[in-house]
Each structure stands twice: as structure tokens, then as C-alpha cells.
């Protein structure tokens, strides 16, 4: 992704791009779920959506279903889109909350078109007409990351990126300032460069092994440190959403692709053995496993400086937050976007690096806080992991946001970083953080009038979803 974006925006007469990769080192990723920003990435490169989807076995994604998170038996979908419509300028979720406090029981899910479509395995792209019932939502993709990488490789190579197959065996630092001067490959070839982008994964070949940048460990907020993944055969309708099912010491992802389903179990090694984790995973598959389970280890956190000297760490080398909200690809995209905006000259001035690290810190921390919310806001007390996360102290940046929602349904919005108001509403409500009080602007609103407003919206959502084809039909026709 970094090579393709840089090739798109750097003129070849000004800058040459080389990419070193080794076939000996595998790609992590067994079915990747994304957020809607991926479409902007694809559009920027001018990728044809149908072609991209065919070549990566992609499906459409309207949201993520969370099962068993706040309580065993609970389920909610975090949709890519708005809920309902405002009532006389009052936000929809406040109207819903007003009626909830009056005893109404209709779930907030009933007012989201992407949720209704997702539940019925339907899909159609949104229209641009805001008055249309098919407006007000977005979509992302679920695809095979091991196929997306070669797809981007071909695209990049056509635009002048030079790819070198080889394993890095040595990194030479400049004596004066400790900047990276060159890489030496197993073949003996020496590769010099001005700027090095470390996409080597958790290992952090350049940023950590050579520059010793250091890592901020977030395990005390997000204790999962292992994953085991396996693909399985598809069964049932082709669902346009990712599922994250909480288990006793972690959670399991289910990412449907066109040809199979990607599955994985993220867990904490403190509370679960690898064998137990694999057994739980295999027990909870929709179809026959198609490979041996693969194990991954990780430490949740962020590199202390994702840009250090002349090295920018992008992807897992920069930091890792478990894929509960499908943010891994987004964080790569954000890093590349900010790097392009702050593309350096050979001076690598501190002012530029500091600004990059400031915004990337915000990007990481805002994703982290949102993930922490899923764990911390639980009522589960059936296993040690849940007892730990329920009682742990959380970042201040999350604590005050939760308090404002719990108090009166207020959502704090911000400029840099992922997750807008509807996402926060979805997860607060889904995790049973429910406002104690209602918005005083609705104090006088006659309840039957609010109920009529809600009824109209519910009907429109149902009609909108019915007007969509199933995802399988849509893919057969357009992809």
C-alpha cells in the first residue's frame, strides 16, 4: 500500500522507489476486513472496483456484528452509516433514548438500513440522493490480503517501483547521526536510500532492531496477545458483514470472502493455552477447515516514534491494535496519507517528524480507545479476562467520553482520527452504556409524535432493505 501510494504521488524524475521483500517471510492476514476508507484508497489509485473484487475474492461489508460482548447472548451490529433521522433538529439517538426511557423496547438496530440489509444478507451501493431510502450509509470490503498485496505489486511495478526479492541481513547506520545508510541483502547487494519505510511487521527490522526506537505497551488495556487463524469452507448465505464473537478469553473473527470464510481467535495467553484457543476456534467454524491453524503472537501498542530519523514504520512495525474494528488497513492508509502530506527532504527536520508523530499518535490512540470501550463496557463476569477488563482503569481520553454518553447521550467528536458519532453510538448502546437521562430538548415532545416519527423511519429501513438484492446476486451481476 505504501509503495503504490507513493508511486501515485511522487514524480519518478524526483524520487525512485524500491521495495525489498522476501518470499521466505510470509504475509500476515488470512482474510482482511476493512472500513469504508479503503474505497478512497482504491479510487485514488484508480482501481476498478469489480476487477479488484474479483482478484481478491472480495465481498462487500456493511458493518461488524458483535456477539456476546456486553452479556452472553447479546448481539449488535456496528453499521457503516447513520441511524434514523433527526426530529426537529434533535439527534436521532436522543429520540430513541427518550422513548427507551419511556419504556419502548425497539432496538436501535431497527433504524439502520445497513444493519437491516446486513441481517438479510442483502447489498446495494448507496445512492447520492439524500432523500432516497438507499442513502446515508457507506460500505467497505472483506478481501484476501495475500491476494491484495500482489495486486498492488503489479500496479506499483507498472508505475516504476523496483521490487527486489531478497532478505535483509544487515543494516548500516551512518556514524554521524545514526541514520540508516543502507541495507545489505543475503545476495550481498547493498541498497542505499534517503528514506526507509519499515513494513517488516511486528519484528520492526529497521525501526526496532536497528534504531531501537522503543515500544509503548498497551497490554494493560488490551490484554490479548495471541491469535490463531484458519480458513474454512463457506456455508449459508454470503453475509455482507464481519462477525466478532466474544469467547471466554478473547474473541473470534469471521470474515466471509467469495470463496471461503476467514476465521481467527484472538486471545490472551495469560488466560488460555494455545491448544485450548485452537480447539475453540475449530469448534466454532461454519464449514470444514481448509488448512492447519496458524498461530501469531503480538504485543498491543505503538512504536514510541513511528517516524524516527529517516525511518517511517508503517503497518505492524508501527504499532498493533487487534482487528476488532478492522482498523489495521485503515492505520496503514492513515500513515501513508500523513507521510505524503509531510513528505520530507533529506534534512529530516524535527519539526516535520514531530508533526507526523503527533497526528499518528492521535490516530493510534483514538482507535485504541474505541477498542478498549468494547472490552471495558461489559457486564460479563464468567471468566477472568472479563473480570479484568471490566475493572481495569482506562485512558482518561476514553473515560470522559464514556461519562458524557452515560450521563445524557452526548458524543464527543474530534477532527483527527477514525470513528464518527454513529460509530460511537452503535458501540455505546451495543455495549449497554445507556444514558441515564434524556436530552432536555425532548422534555416536552409528545411521545406519540416521537413514536410516529420512529415508525416512519422503521418502515423506510425495512422497505429500503427489501429493495436490495442479496449480496450473492449483486456480486454475480456486477463483479
Amino acid at each position, binding site marked *: 500500500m505504501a509503495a503504490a501510494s507513493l508511486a501515485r*504521488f*511522487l*514524480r519518478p524524475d*524526483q524520487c525512485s522507489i524500491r521495495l525489498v521483500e522476501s518470499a521466505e517471510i510470509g504475509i500476515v492476514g488470512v482474510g482482511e476486513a476493512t472500513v469504508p476508507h479503503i474505497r478512497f484508497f482504491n479510487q*485514488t489509485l484508480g482501481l476498478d472496483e469489480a476487477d479488484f473484487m474479483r482478484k481478491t475474492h472480495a465481498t462487500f461489508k456493511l458493518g461488524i456484528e458483535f456477539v456476546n460482548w456486553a452479556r452472553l447472548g447479546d448481539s449488535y451490529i456496528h453499521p457503516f452509516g447513520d441511524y434514523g433521522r433527526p426530529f426537529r*433538529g434533535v439527534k436521532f439517538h436522543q429520540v430513541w433514548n427518550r422513548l*427507551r*426511557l*419511556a*419504556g419502548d423496547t425497539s432496538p436501535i438496530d431497527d433504524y439502520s438500513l445497513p444493519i437491516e440489509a446486513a441481517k438479510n444478507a442483502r447489498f446495494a451501493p448507496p445512492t447520492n440522493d439524500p432523500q432516497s431510502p438507499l442513502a446515508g450509509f457507506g460500505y467497505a470490503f472483506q478481501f484476501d490480503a495475500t491476494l491484495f498485496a500482489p495486486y498492488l505489486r503489479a500496479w506499483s511495478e507498472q508505475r516504476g517501483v523496483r521490487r527486489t526479492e531478497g532478505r535483509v541481513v544487515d543494516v548500516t547506520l551512518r556514524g554521524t547521526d545514526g541514520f540508516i545508510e543502507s541495507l545489505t541483502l543475503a545476495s550481498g547487494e547493498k541498497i542505499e536510500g534517503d528514506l526507509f519505510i519499515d513494513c517488516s511487521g511486528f519484528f520492526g527490522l529497521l525501526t526496532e532492531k536497528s534504531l531501537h526506537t522503543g515500544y509503548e505497551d498497551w497490554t494493560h488495556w488490551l490484554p490479548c496477545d495471541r491469535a490463531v487463524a484458519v480458513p474454512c469452507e463457506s456455508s449459508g448465505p454470503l453475509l455482507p458483514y464481519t462477525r466478532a464473537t466474544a469467547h471466554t478469553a478473547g474473541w473470534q473473527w469471521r470474515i466471509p470472502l467469495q470463496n471461503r470464510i476467514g476465521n481467527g481467535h484472538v486471545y490472551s495467553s495469560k488466560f488460555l493455552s494455545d491448544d485450548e484457543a485452537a480447539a475453540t476456534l475449530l469448534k466454532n467454524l461454519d464449514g470444514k477447515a481448509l488448512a492447519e491453524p496458524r498461530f501469531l503472537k503480538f504485543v498491543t501498542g505503538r512504536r514510541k516514534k513511528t517516524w524516527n530519523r529517516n525511518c517511517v514504520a508503517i503497518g505492524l512495525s508501527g504499532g498493533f491494535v487487534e482487528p476488532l474494528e478492522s482498523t489495521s488497513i485503515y492505520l496503514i492508509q492513515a500513515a501513508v496519507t500523513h507521510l*505524503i*502530506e*509531510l*513528505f520530507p*527532504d533529506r534534512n529530516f*527536520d524535527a*519539526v*516535520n517528524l514531530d*508533526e507526523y508523530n503527533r497526528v499518528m499518535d492521535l490516530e493510534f490512540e483514538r482507535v485504541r480507545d474505541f477498542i478498549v470501550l468494547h472490552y471495558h463496557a461489559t457486564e460479563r463476569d464468567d471468566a477472568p479476562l472479563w473480570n479484568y477488563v471490566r475493572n481495569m482503569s482506562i485512558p482518561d481520553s476514553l473515560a*470522559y467520553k464514556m*461519562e*458524557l454518553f452515560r*450521563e*445524557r447521550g*452526548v458524543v*464527543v*467528536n*474530534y*477532527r*483527527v482520527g477514525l470513528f464518527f458519532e454513529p460509530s460511537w453510538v452503535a458501540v455505546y448502546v451495543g455495549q449497554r452504556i445507556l444514558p441515564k*437521562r434524556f*436530552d*432536555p*430538548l425532548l*422534555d*416536552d415532545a409528545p411521545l406519540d409524535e416521537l413514536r410516529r416519527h420512529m415508525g416512519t423511519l422503521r418502515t423506510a429501513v425495512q422497505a429500503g432493505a427489501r429493495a436490495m438484492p442479496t449480496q450473492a446476486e449483486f456480486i454475480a451481476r456486477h463483479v
Partner: protein
Amino acid sequence: MSEPVHDMATRNLVIVGGGLAGWYAAARIGHAMRGRKITVRVVHAAPPRAPADPLDVFCASTLPAQAVAHAELGLEERLFMRECRATFKLATEYRGFTDPARSYMLPHGEIGARLEAVGFHQFITRLAQAGRAPDLDEFSVPSIAARLGRFAHPSQDARTVLSTYEYAYHFDTQAYTRLLRGFAQRLGAVAIDAELAGVERSADGRDIAALTLADGERITGDLFIDCSGARSALLGATLDVPFDSWRGWLPCDRALATRVPALEPPAPFTRVSAEAGGWTWQVPLRSELEQAQIFDSSRVDPDTALKRALSGGAPVSEMSFVNGRRRELWRGNCVAVGAAAGFLEPLASTGLQLINEGVTRLVALFPDRGSMPTMAAEYNRAMGAMYDGARDFVLLHYLLSRRAEAPWNVEPASWPPSLARRVEMFRYRGRVVLEDDEIFEESDWACAFVGQGERPARYSILADQANDAEVLARVAKIARVMQAAVQKLPPHHAYLERYLA
């Protein structure tokens, strides 16, 4: 589940101060809460010899958000404009802030066009480095229209460049305050025409318990809104929230304002001009022109300034102020709005906008009696950032001035770190650093920096895709299309006459 008992509801609102801030708050809150079982009382007599609040005296020169606020209120534009002798505003002209001979526009609208996913000013930097230095003013419909004295409402058709701007207003503040007062009273606000004699704190000292009026009446409330002006009778004088002065950065402390009959048709923009010792402003109403001097009384003798102002023959209003804000804007059950919260000289038309933002956020965070501390913390975080961002924006005009006399050439002991960072990043590569809560957006900051003569050392690689000739051709075309479109707009005064006929 049964209907919850709403025993903690905030039902009894007391606003202290009946100026612009007080009646604006009463109207907006009254409208948002219309039909609710809530009482809004406005204690509105100023004590004798109270210094005039500059926010009440100056004409209002607003930012575009005011049109949005009026739409929310249901305040009809024609009615409002007639009552308040209002004119349209497309920009502010800054004269002599870099050197005495130069001026630039801060327009209400887009600059240039989106050529890549990057601010248009990056292309201007690129051309400047190639030896061409087109003026940003040529790439803004509102700047071009302002200079030519033209106006029409923006087009709704996104395909035309006439949809790339917004507009604001100039109007008479006292007429506006009367209009809002009528509006608020029709919504049920009660005006109490009595002077404030005393303020009681609650037993624990954290809240306001009651007000005592000069006639002996005692007024209790759930939530008090302090709109008492710079004396900050509740938040500052009673709850002891300290005032953080910005005087070390913004030394002006006096203003003299006068109205003269207009000799020319009203310009669709505000003009501010840097002078020795301070600056002046000109705000056009329908048939009058407000002229004001804002200056540092340690550098300009107030008597001399007054004599000069009086020589015009019109009455002169004299005002004193200190730039700065209260460390907290909401404490306990007391929120300050307007000068009771803070004051910023009107160089960037932020006066009414800070009131507007405060009231909007107060409505969004409207507290129950149990949730005051939670809501106050969030209000202080967001509104504090709004004030500080606006201060940075005004202050950059001083600190980046190239004029050779005080206060423009004074280097303060230290800069606010937030502004230092913004300036450093702009100089380094034309990047505008924005916080989460800001009044001004990227194009505003870029215009101000460029207008003040800042030339970034580098430009974005996103502005480097095409060759110089292609960029020049595209940029020239934008200017041409804008120029041609503006030529079709009517003169501002003709448009006003027709629109308000």
C-alpha cells in the same frame, strides 16, 4: 419501565445581563426549549456608571455561522436585516498589517479549487518559488466580489463557482439586541428591570444560590448564565474564577467608536487597518459607517485620540477592555457568556461567534442538576480551546507583522505554544495545524498567514504532480472563471435595495 421522574431537571434559568450576550442566550435557549416547563428570567439593568461593554457598542461584523444560527432560530433574514440596518459581508480587508502599503482579504469562502487533495495555497507557494507570485485574492469569489462591491446570495448549484462562498453580516448591535429581546420574550423569557445588588453563594461555596436585586427581591435559580460583561459578576466576582489576561500578547485596551453618515454605498466587507499604536475598523451599515480606533493606551494618548475622533462631529463611544478569558467558563451552576467569559478585540470578527458557540454548546450539553460537573468539564475543554484558537488567530496579525512601529514590532517574552507551533508548521511547509475545536478553518489560517507575508519554505508533493506550465494554466483559468462569474453579480447596494424592498 415506567416514565422516570425528572426531579433533577434544570427548570429555573436566570440570566444576568441584558446586553447582546444576555438576550442572545435568552433567545437561543428559549427557542431550543420552547414548550418546555422552564422559566428564563433576564436581570437586565446595568448598574449606574458601569463601563460600556464593547460587545454592545461596536457594530456586529459576524462570521458566516450567524446565518446558520438565524436559520435555526427561524429568524427571517429580510426582517432581521431591515430591523438591524444590516449589510452583507463577504470578507475582511486587512490593510497595512504587513507593510503600510499592502492589503489582503480574508474571504468567507473557498480559495481556488481542489486540484489535488491539498490546500490551494500549496500551488501558490509552488508558483512563488518558480518566480511567479499570484495574489491569493484573485482566487476567491468573495474576495473578488468584495473588491468590486458586488453581492448576491451564493448559488445552490455546485457546478458553478458562485457556489463556493458563504456570507456574513454587518449590523447595528443595539437594534439586534432589541430584536432578540422581543423574540425571547415572545418565547416566554421574563425581563426583570432591576439592578443586581448582591450575589449569594451556596453553603459549600461551589454554586450560585441566589441573586439579590436593588429592590430587595431575592432570585433563586437552577442554572445561572453570567452575561454581566467584563466585571463577570457571578463567575469571576462571586465564584472567584480567575481571569487570565492576554495583555502581554495583545496590548490594546481602549476603543473609540463613532458613526458617520455614509458617503458611498456600503461595501460588502469589513475593513481593518493597522496604525501606529493600534488599528482602526470600518463597518458599513445601510446608510452609516462605523469607524473605530482600537489602541494601546500606553502608546497612544487617549485624550488626543478622543479629540481626533470628536473632530468628525458625531458622538463618540469610549470603551476600555482587556483581552483575555476566565480560566473556567463554567463552574458549578454558572456559565459565563460574552465578555463575562472573555474578551477578544474584534480584529477577526469573533465577538458574536464566541457567544454563539458558547450558547450552542450550552444547549448541546444542557445539564440536569445532577450532571453539572460532567457537562462543565466538557464545556470548559471545548470552549476554552475555541477562545484560545481565536486568540491565536488575532495574535498572528501582530506577531507576523512587518511594520516598524509599536505594537506591531513588539516581540513578546514568549509566544503561546499553540501559535508558535502553527506558525512553525506553516513556515516549514504551508501546513495548517488545526485543533479539534476551532472557529477558523484551514483556508482562513492559510489566507491570514499568506496575507501576513509568510512564504512557506516548501510545498506539498501533492502540488507537484504537473509541470509549471500546466499548473500556471490551470491556476490562471480558475482566476479567469471566477473573475467572469463575479462580473455577472449586481452591485451590493442594488442587491440590498431589491432584496429588502
